[in-house]
């Protein structure tokens, strides 16, 4: 049986009248890439800060590696690597010096530390930038440095709090591949994000958070099975007479039909050949249409159906 690396039990955190974490519980097994998914303000970062004993919480228990986590649990902290949402490096130290500084807080042996620093630099692809100061690095490279500072000491548990915010696609892919490689090398990973694509791509298990509560938990397939939607058909069409709309709504397995911005969006639950049946209706009435595509449900659909709102703001 896989060991629990993290166990959070009935955690409650209040900021005045606001409940940031509402009896939040979680178990993360060894070797998992666990995703905490939720919109901004859902309580992801608060969970991480409580987990790291940075934040005082009102109720609940937190165990890491089977031991109660406290601010002076230095033996536990030694095995954790943290990559914060905000880049946390010294502006006046070079790339190498920054990684060496943080690695030195965990590893005192100089030779071992030097090897770890070199490996971390290579891992994040900053070999050509080791003497650069952070202000000379692009946003993506800076994020990579931030990650290197958190993983150089080869931790068993790596916590990444939205590490790809404001990162270009190339750097983002590199970061995600790196996280998967760290996991393959034996690290358990906790990954928070409000980018569902990232979570879908790398996480083996996911918890969806909203308003400080865990609203769903499971693998991505398990989560998708929790909802009614199995397929969404989108058809670009200039107009949609009411009788046709009624006819499509009456087709088998169709449970929702929306027409907005010249797009007909049909949600289906189960069944086969749903697209063929819809196109048959349109062709029979000689309605011309443009692009047609179907999508399998996403985590956003899961979140939408469970909470009644979109996972991400439109600008995200």
């Amino acid at each position, binding site marked *: 049986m896989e060991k629990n690396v993290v166990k959070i039990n009935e955690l409650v955190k209040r900021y005045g009248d606001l409940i940031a974490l509402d009896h939040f519980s979680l178990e993360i097994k060894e070797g998992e890439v666990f995703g905490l998914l939720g919109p901004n303000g859902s309580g992801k970062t608060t969970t991480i*800060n409580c987990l790291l004993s940075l934040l005082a919480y009102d109720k609940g228990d937190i165990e890491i590696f089977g031991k109660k986590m406290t601010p002076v649990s230095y033996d536990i902290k030694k095995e954790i690597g*943290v990559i914060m949402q905000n880049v*946390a490096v010294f502006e006046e130290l070079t790339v190498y010096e920054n990684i060496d500084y943080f690695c030195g807080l965990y590893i005192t042996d100089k030779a071992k530390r030097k090897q770890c620093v070199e490996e971390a630099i290579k891992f994040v692809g900053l070999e050509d930038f080791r003497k650069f100061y952070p202000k000379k690095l692009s946003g993506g490279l800076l994020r990579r440095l931030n990650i290197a500072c958190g993983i150089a000491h080869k931790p068993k548990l790596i916590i990444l709090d939205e590490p790809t915010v404001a990162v270009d696609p190339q750097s983002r892919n590199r970061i995600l591949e790196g996280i998967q490689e760290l996991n393959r090398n034996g690290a358990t990973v906790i990954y928070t994000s409000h980018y569902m694509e990232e979570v879908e791509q790398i996480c083996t298990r996911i918890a969806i958070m909203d308003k400080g509560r865990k609203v769903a938990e499971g693998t991505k397939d398990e989560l998708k099975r929790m909802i009614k939607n199995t397929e969404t058909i989108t058809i670009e069409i200039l107009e949609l007479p009411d009788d046709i709309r009624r006819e499509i709504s009456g087709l088998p397995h169709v449970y929702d039909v929306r027409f907005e911005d010249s797009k007909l969006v049909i949600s289906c639950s189960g069944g086969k050949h749903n697209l063929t049946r819809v196109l048959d209706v349109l062709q029979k009435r000689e309605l011309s249409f443009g692009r047609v595509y179907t999508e399998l449900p996403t985590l956003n659909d899961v979140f939408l159906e469970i909470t009644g709102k979109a996972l991400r703001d439109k600008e995200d």
Partner: protein
Amino acid sequence: MFLHILKYELKNGVRTKDLIIWLMVFPIVLGTFFKIAFGSVYNKTEKFSAIPVAVVEETENPAFRQVLNGIESADEPFLKVTYADRAKAEELLDSGDIEGIISSADKLGLTVKQKGLSQTMLKSFVEQYTLREKIAMDAIQTSPEKAQEIISSLMSGTVSSCREIPLTQGNPDMYIQYFYNLIAMVAMFGCMTGMHVTMQNQANLSALGARNNCSPAPKLVTILACLTGSFILQTVCMLLCVTFLAFVLKVDFGDRLPLVYPAAILGGIMGVSFGFFVGSVSHMSQKTKTAVLMSASMLLCFLSGLMVGDLKGTIAQKAPWFNNINPAAVVSDSFYCLNIDEDYTRFITKLITMAVITVVFIMLGFIISRRKKYASV
């Protein structure tokens, strides 16, 4: 661990431009500015003590010549006399080589070409001599037996009418106070390095603080290492500042220069601990804290008379206790004691006060910073 953190604290500190500007460039620039501004006054003082003047002896006046010889042979002569005939003297005056012509006939006469401090002093000298000569002549006529005594007395009065006697071998010149104030101000700027220590060690103040708090390095060790680094940096800056003023700008600290160093160093360490304490007390952004700290240190400097000289005296009358706990006032007072007092009692008291304030600030800072968890991050 301690040495590892200390090493990087020092590296980070010496590369932080803001700190270098305020702790090194600022005193150099302002000290140089002071030297340029007040140096001209010093130079003029030297010129006053040796005003070039031509003496035209139209009739022989041995008494006057004796007085002039006495003045010129003094340690700090204020006249540089050239004996010449009228034509040559006027030529020297026209060329600007001399400030005036004293003609010695039945009575002294003075010819100058322009108005100024040197000319005023020459006029005063001629008037004094004329007056004293008359007193001497009257005394010789009324009491001939005391003539020599009276003449000696009057002559000494002419050469040096007033002498300031300092209590110490320091430099009690008012201008030196500006340089002492400058050192005190740099010591207070140490608060910026002190604030950096809290910013990078408290999880609720910065991302760096959060990352450091996640590490297995005990908080006491990290804070102590960072504080030690800040103390070392501040000490180096204070040493450089005093050395630059004393040996490059040639500011005269008298024979107590060796004691200026420990006072400046202790003042700097107190400045760092002040910043550490203020940085610890509240949950504000770095920008806000910097603004609060700069305002607080400027206010304390202002109240200690570093900007308006007589304000400290007013506070000493109205609330004397305040000057004893105001860090800026304690630093400037230590220099003042060093400069004015003959013994070291008050100076040592000020050093002890600085040490006590430093310890209090550090302890309070530690008590506040030792929190293990935060209400918000």
